């Protein structure tokens, strides 16, 4: 019997010991990683703001986007918000979005564009330096862009560089790196030759995919971007420490050419991937910036410390024009006019979003200084009578006595479900049509939509660069983003002109025509525009949140 007691005792001791040893191991790990980044917080223990504030430093506490680990800090690989938001503050491209969200000088101090709009010559700043002290040279851009276009790199962002001559060929394996139209004329001069004139090329260059890579560092260590102690940047901040899946700490970069403009001493990026938790941390003062949990939207949205800004993107529904009954334009239009977007925005999606009566969200400025949305106006409205009439006409055209069954598909998610159910309801009320709802797990859904297996399905679009063509181009014949079966030579031509026309006013005219045509054909129904809604603690100011692009802490301040 004593044996048993002994056994029980030893089991308990063993368990406690094991628990303690793992505790110690975890402790040493963090200590090690900290000692490699001299002068960081004293261990992870209690690294709260009290300590840092005591030192009189300005430290901003953020959550990294939705609170996840960046995919990669290799500018060519991290094609998502979680990677590019922090990266946009660690590095800088030739151009950088300024306080008016327009492409202004970055590493390039000035540039010349040839008359035909094909050749860009960038003059790099003499004082642009890497965080290790190396000068930023033209070769760093050549290296980075060819790295992005190398098929073996398998960059998801590579298509953004197809505006450059020879880029698409190299990326698809038909050309070679030498044929890509980017050359270092001398240390501080970079020449870029485009495939076609591209009026918004300077804006495309603000995208993190076009950031330079210190080629000396990268040639020595291809994994330079994986850890904080090997990371070399050229932006307003340096990566002081990176505890994967836990936290990143940025510090002001003294080597940055415009370091005087940078007010923050440090920025903490946490990775709290739970909306409620990050809000509770905001409440308790552990975070300076947070997002509003969906269920608290009604309570918080009108608060004083809420920032609401436009965000270049659209939620919409695609018709599959290869499936009945949506081969018929009038039937497609009928569905579009049967939707009360105002109600969806205000009562279903909430959070201050705007209903979409066109495809291009507000915030795109035409060469004449107007907003593209205002110029093109409302292209669709809520009009149940017109909807019914269009449905009637469409059915007659097709010789339908009753509509073929319609299934509306969305990817699984609370908000998607709420919107889909509202649409279902609106179609019954305003069209007398009953659609069946179906939801699919996201990746399954994406495959089915890509393969044109869905009849009527949800979609979203987020802009990669600041030009309407970014969205409109999706619907050219056989585009990977088309996903509707739509094909029109007239539309394809409008888009080609909308991309390559050198006269900017004429180019925007083509884009305006293209959007109108898209609305007339109604191969997709716009529902609402996206927006940016964040809570900012008192005293936080100067964070630039561009409608298109990634947020910028260069001018951010905290009282």
């Amino acid at each position, binding site marked *: 019997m004593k044996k048993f007691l002994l056994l029980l005792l030893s089991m308990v001791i063993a368990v406690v010991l094991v628990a303690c040893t793992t505790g110690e191991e975890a402790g040493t790990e963090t200590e090690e990683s900290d000692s490699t980044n001299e002068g960081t917080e004293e261990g992870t223990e209690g690294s709260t703001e009290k300590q840092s504030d005591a030192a009189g430093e300005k430290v901003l506490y953020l959550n990294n986007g939705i609170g996840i680990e960046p995919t990669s800090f290799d500018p060519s690989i991290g094609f998502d918000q979680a990677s590019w938001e922090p990266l946009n503050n660690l590095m800088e491209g030739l151009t950088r979005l300024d306080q008016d969200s327009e492409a202004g000088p970055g590493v390039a101090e000035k540039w010349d564009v040839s008359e035909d709009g094909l050749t860009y010559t960038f003059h790099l700043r003499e004082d642009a330096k890497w965080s290790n002290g190396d000068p930023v040279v033209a070769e760093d851009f050549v290296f980075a862009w060819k790295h992005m276009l190398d098929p073996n790199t*398998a*960059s*998801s962002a590579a298509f953004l560089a197809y505006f450059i001559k020879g880029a698409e060929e190299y990326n698809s394996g038909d050309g070679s790196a030498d044929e890509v139209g980017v050359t270092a004329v001398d240390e501080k001069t970079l020449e870029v030759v485009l495939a076609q004139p591209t009026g918004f090329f300077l804006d495309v260059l603000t995208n993190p995919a076009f950031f330079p890579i210190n080629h000396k560092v990268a040639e020595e260590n291809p994994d330079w971007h994986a850890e904080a102690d090997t990371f070399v940047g050229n932006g307003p901040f340096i990566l002081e420490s990176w505890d994967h899946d836990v936290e990143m700490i940025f510090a002001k970069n003294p080597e940055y050419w415009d370091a005087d403009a940078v007010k923050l001493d440090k920025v903490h990026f946490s990775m709290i991937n739970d909306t409620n938790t990050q809000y509770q941390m905001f409440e308790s003062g552990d975070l300076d910036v947070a997002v509003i949990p969906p269920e608290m939207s009604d309570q918080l949205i009108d608060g004083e410390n809420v920032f609401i800004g436009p965000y270049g993107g659209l939620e919409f529904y695609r018709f599959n024009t290869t499936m009945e009954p949506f081969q018929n334009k009038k039937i497609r239009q009928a569905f579009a006019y049967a939707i009360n977007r105002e109600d969806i925005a205000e009562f279903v999606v909430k959070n201050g979003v705007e209903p979409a009566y066109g495809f291009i969200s507000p915030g795109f400025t035409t060469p004449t200084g107007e907003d593209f949305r205002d110029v093109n106006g409302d292209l669709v409205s809520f009009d149940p009578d017109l909807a019914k009439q269009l449905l009637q006409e469409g059915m007659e055209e097709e010789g339908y006595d009753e509509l073929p069954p319609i299934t509306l598909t969305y990817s699984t998610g609370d908000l998607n479900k709420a919107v889909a159910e509202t649409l279902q309801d609106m179609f019954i009320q305003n069209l007398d049509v009953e659609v069946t709802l179906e939801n699919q797990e996201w990746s399954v859904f994406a495959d089915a939509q890509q393969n044109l297996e869905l009849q009527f399905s949800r979609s979203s679009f987020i802009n990669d660069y600041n030009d309407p063509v970014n969205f409109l181009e999706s619907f050219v014949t056989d585009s990977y983003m088309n996903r509707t079966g739509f094909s029109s030579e007239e539309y394809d031509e409008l888009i080609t002109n909308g991309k390559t026309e050198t006269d900017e006013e004429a180019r925007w005219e083509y884009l305006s025509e293209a959007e109108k045509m898209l609305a007339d054909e109604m191969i997709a129904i716009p529902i609402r525009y996206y927006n940016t809604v964040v809570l900012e603690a008192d005293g936080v100011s100067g964070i630039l949140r561009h409608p298109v692009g990634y947020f910028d802490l260069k001018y951010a301040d905290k009282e």
Partner: protein
Amino acid sequence: MLRYTLKRLLIAFITLWIIISITFLLMISVPGSPFNTDKTSNETVQANLEAHYNLDEPYFIQYVLYLKSIATFDFGPSIKQPNQTVNDLLGRGFPISFELGMITIVVAVISGITLGIFSALKHNGIIDYLAMGFAVLGISIPNFILATLLIQKLAVDYSIFPVATWASPSHMVLPVLALATGPMAIIARLTRSTMLEVLTQDYIKMARAKGLSPWKITIKHALRNALMPVVTIMGTLLAAILTGTFVIEQIFAIPGMGKYFVESINQRDYPVIMGTTVFYSAFLILMLFLVDIVYGLLDPRIKLHKKGGK
């Protein structure tokens, strides 16, 4: 004992191979790709990505590549975090999940058994009702609700503990409480019911008749037998809790490995799916093996080598 262990080991390998093969089959039969994105893309980019991760190879080749990577314990880089290998992810996440899990298990076992014993001894008394009422609550309140409640009350309203993250002992209190309550309640109920059964056995009456102290009877004679069902559930419980729990780790922003189980599947991150599956299976097999050994120690009537390899 050695023969038994070897036999179990062999069976473990076969089991693992079957699990790996089924997982592979499931992975390729589920539609979707790790490169599906709601951002812009095109055919060339997709083709480059597939070639980069060997996903353009025939399934058989992919299967062989997987087996090879598993045999060498090198699952390769994660597709969604290409700078990290699956081994990095598991090596970083597991110690944290293990730490949280171990503390949770210790708390759950000690408090659960104690509650169970007292309820059984004071059967139908006020302590029994209180403890069992508590246990019913513990089983029926999902841990994520308890977690949010604990954070709101103890962290936000009264600022006794930090809201989230995994840094100091005080950060551990809330997640351990949230995670331990469920298993504790189960253990308490199990202990109580088996204790009640055991306490009516003849040998207990015999021990009482001999005049042994109630304390001795409870601990030495009754509890030992009452522990058998608890040990039975410990195998699965240990494997489940020690390898991380998705929801609790997410709520408290604990960088454990729980999220890899769920997210890798949503993201079709094939190497991570394989890595977590193999890891979890191997761990579960090990725990069940340990449980079998503990059986033999608790109850000499169970002879391992006779029924070995069942």
